[in-house]
């Protein structure tokens, strides 16, 4: 058994967030009281079904969609995979556009499509990390079926202009509508997500990035869009996702999302101020840089570094002090590869390798930020001194 962890300062919420107490309570209750299979016809099953549907309605309300427009998946990666792969079922020729800074689940899904005869274009981003709307217009062609642009980036926190993406797509599309999908995993619960106003056809969500449990996510799908299911079997989730549904995971998901939405105003203003305080405390150090500066960003994310100092060495120094941050995204198990997101923004590779992601959560305290910058300052000085 691993020993009890030391006191920690957790600044890696974009990798995963601690379960919110309200989510834990709801899950514990559901594990006790709703052990049935929601597809079972008896009281046990129907109790689980009723709870599941109530939570679905709650989540749908938060998103401003109807509950029939929300299907549960095992997480964000699966929801993204479903949307991408479904394009292959619609026949060729087909063309999809994904932004160059998407999560690997979108990019690898697009690679798979490319191997199956679908043309794939990568929408470039500016040096601030925002997608280039003018380039989008040029990429759209008659056989374009899907445009997928994330709502906010996991590494930089840069918020994409989804309303303008949709507007541009609608302006350029022909008789056959082009589906617009947004991976909103990092945005959900942190910034408003007006899916209906934006007019997107689909949005991907994951519970564990916002203080819900791992193993559950959702796809909000505008009614009328019936993509081919990815996981086949039973007829759960309107036939779009087979497999026994989990009332306790859904309960945790809805509880976390509900709590965050209720407290969003007080939380994120405070968190954004802390994020900026961190940048200010580090700004005078030699070679300091902040990626995505100037673009609208999630209130909790800062992607920063110091020219000439590898992110890995900073990450290790912080970890030794019990401070958890990340370099790049958390999904590529093992090796740290240069971030495709920062490369797409045109950053030179040395700067990419120097970039740290610091992502705050609703409970992050000023003292934790101060401690983080103190450790970073000391480490930067030590490394610079050693170099001279």
């Amino acid at each position, binding site marked *: 058994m691993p020993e009890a962890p030391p006191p920690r300062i957790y600044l890696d919420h974009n*990798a995963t967030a601690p379960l919110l107490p309200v989510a834990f309570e709801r899950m514990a209750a559901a594990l006790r009281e709703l052990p049935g299979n929601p597809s079972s016809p008896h009281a046990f099953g129907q109790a689980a079904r009723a709870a599941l549907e109530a939570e679905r309605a709650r989540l749908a309300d938060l998103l401003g969609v109807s509950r029939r427009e929300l299907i549960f998946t095992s997480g964000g990666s699966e929801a993204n995979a479903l949307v991408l792969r479904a394009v292959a079922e619609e026949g060729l020729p087909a063309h999809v556009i994904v932004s160059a800074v998407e999560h690997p689940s979108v990019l690898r899904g697009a690679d798979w499509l490319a191997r199956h005869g679908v043309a794939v274009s990568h929408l470039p981003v500016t040096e601030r990390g925002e997608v280039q709307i003018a380039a989008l217009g040029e990429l759209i062609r008659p056989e374009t079926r899907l445009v997928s642009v994330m709502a906010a980036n996991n590494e930089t926190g840069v918020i994409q202009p989804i309303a303008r993406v949709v507007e541009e797509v609608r302006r350029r599309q022909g008789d056959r509508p082009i589906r617009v999908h947004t991976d909103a995993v990092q945005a959900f619960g942190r910034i408003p997500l007006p899916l209906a106003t934006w007019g997107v056809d689909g949005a991907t969500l994951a519970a564990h990035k916002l203080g819900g449990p791992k193993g559950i996510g959702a796809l909000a799908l505008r009614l009328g869009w019936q993509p081919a299911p990815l996981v086949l079997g039973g*007829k759960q989730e309107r036939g779009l996702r087979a497999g026994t549904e989990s009332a306790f995971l859904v309960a945790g998901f809805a509880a976390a999302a509900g709590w965050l939405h209720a407290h969003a105003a007080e939380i994120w203003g405070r968190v954004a101020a802390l994020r900026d305080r961190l940048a200010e405390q580090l700004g005078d150090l030699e070679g300091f840089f902040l990626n995505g500066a100037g673009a609208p960003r999630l209130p909790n994310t800062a992607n920063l570094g110091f020219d000439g100092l590898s992110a890995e060495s900073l990450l290790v120094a912080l970890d030794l002090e019990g401070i958890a941050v990340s370099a790049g995204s958390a*999904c590529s198990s093992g090796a740290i590869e240069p971030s495709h997101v920062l490369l797409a923004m045109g950053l030179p590779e040395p700067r990419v390798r120097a970039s740290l992601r610091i992502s705050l959560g609703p409970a992050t305290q000023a003292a934790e930020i101060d401690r983080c910058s103190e450790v970073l300052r000391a480490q930067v000085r030590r490394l610079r001194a050693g170099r001279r």
Partner: protein
Amino acid sequence: MNPEFYLDNAATTMLLPEALEQALPYLGERFGNPSSLHGLGMEAHRAVKHAREGLARLLDVPPQAIVFTSGGTESDNLALRGVFAAPALAGERLLVSAIEHPAVRETARALAAEGVRVERIPVTRGGVVELARLEKLLAPDVRMVSCMAVNNELGTRQPLADIGRLVKAHAPRAVFHVDAVQAFAKERLAWREARIDLLSLSAHKAHGPKGVGALVRCAPVPLQPWLRGGGQEEGLRSGTENPFGIVAFAEAARQAAARHAAQQGERAAYHARWLEYLAGFPELRLYRSEQATPFVISLAYPPLPGEVILHHLEQEGLLVSTGSACHSLKREPSDVLLAVGLSEQEALSSIRLSFSVFNTLGGLDSVLPAFGRAVEKLRRL
């Protein structure tokens, strides 16, 4: 509710308290993402590794053979898709038994639409794959054979060792996949003897939590991922791993294995006592098979639809199922029951009693009379 009265353990089982306790810290302070490189991430990574090794020991496979998934359905999808996405020769064949779970049946149907030649292996009235027919279907162009270990609706055990022997003799390149969701933690999975290549498992059918399962690669067959992205699970299944679910899954499996030997006598006696009791109701049609496991009893009362029987049993506190839970909300006879020769009326009247370790001989003293009272009421309808 009294767990003795829950007779729908093939649909889902109760989470074992020991499994919950073991996994609970991963809903609390040990919340890290196993892919994160800092201490919290490493801690979660170690927990997943430890659970993987534990499960691997129970199954007698190397740890890297285990690919954690979101459940049995995804495991079945990955098995079939994963094999047929690997470089294939045109016109290759997939053989699936006639009584597979919808996760295999529907995936096979999708593959058929994509050009794979899918053929059904018929079963006997006893719910067992017809070995002679299988042998005729087998040829070197068979890429994969999928046959479950224990059927979810009938509880019949398949002759996996015979199937495996035939597969490897007549289609040496074929991958032998076994959906062992209903057998896992109940039956011994002698995969080596049966020459099984891929095994699908689900946690929640074996007192683990919902939302987690595994595909076990007993042999290093070439497999392509079905969920792509961050490259977790050695690239075979992307998506943030679920340490809570994985730890609870492994612990539930460990507990089941520990009590397995001691349980065998009680399981057989429990089943026998049901059969003895049911013999007193000649109007009930019991599904019989020489390959029955002691975990499922399928029966019908043909004048009445299964829903009515279920309802009356529920009034006595007994929870059972009609057909399998995945398609029991619509009134169509189960394909599986038709495949073993039940008439449509019999199939529509069928209910399933399915048991777990929480159903004990002692509990039958109150469970059987409750069942009897329900049948008395049904007789008067």
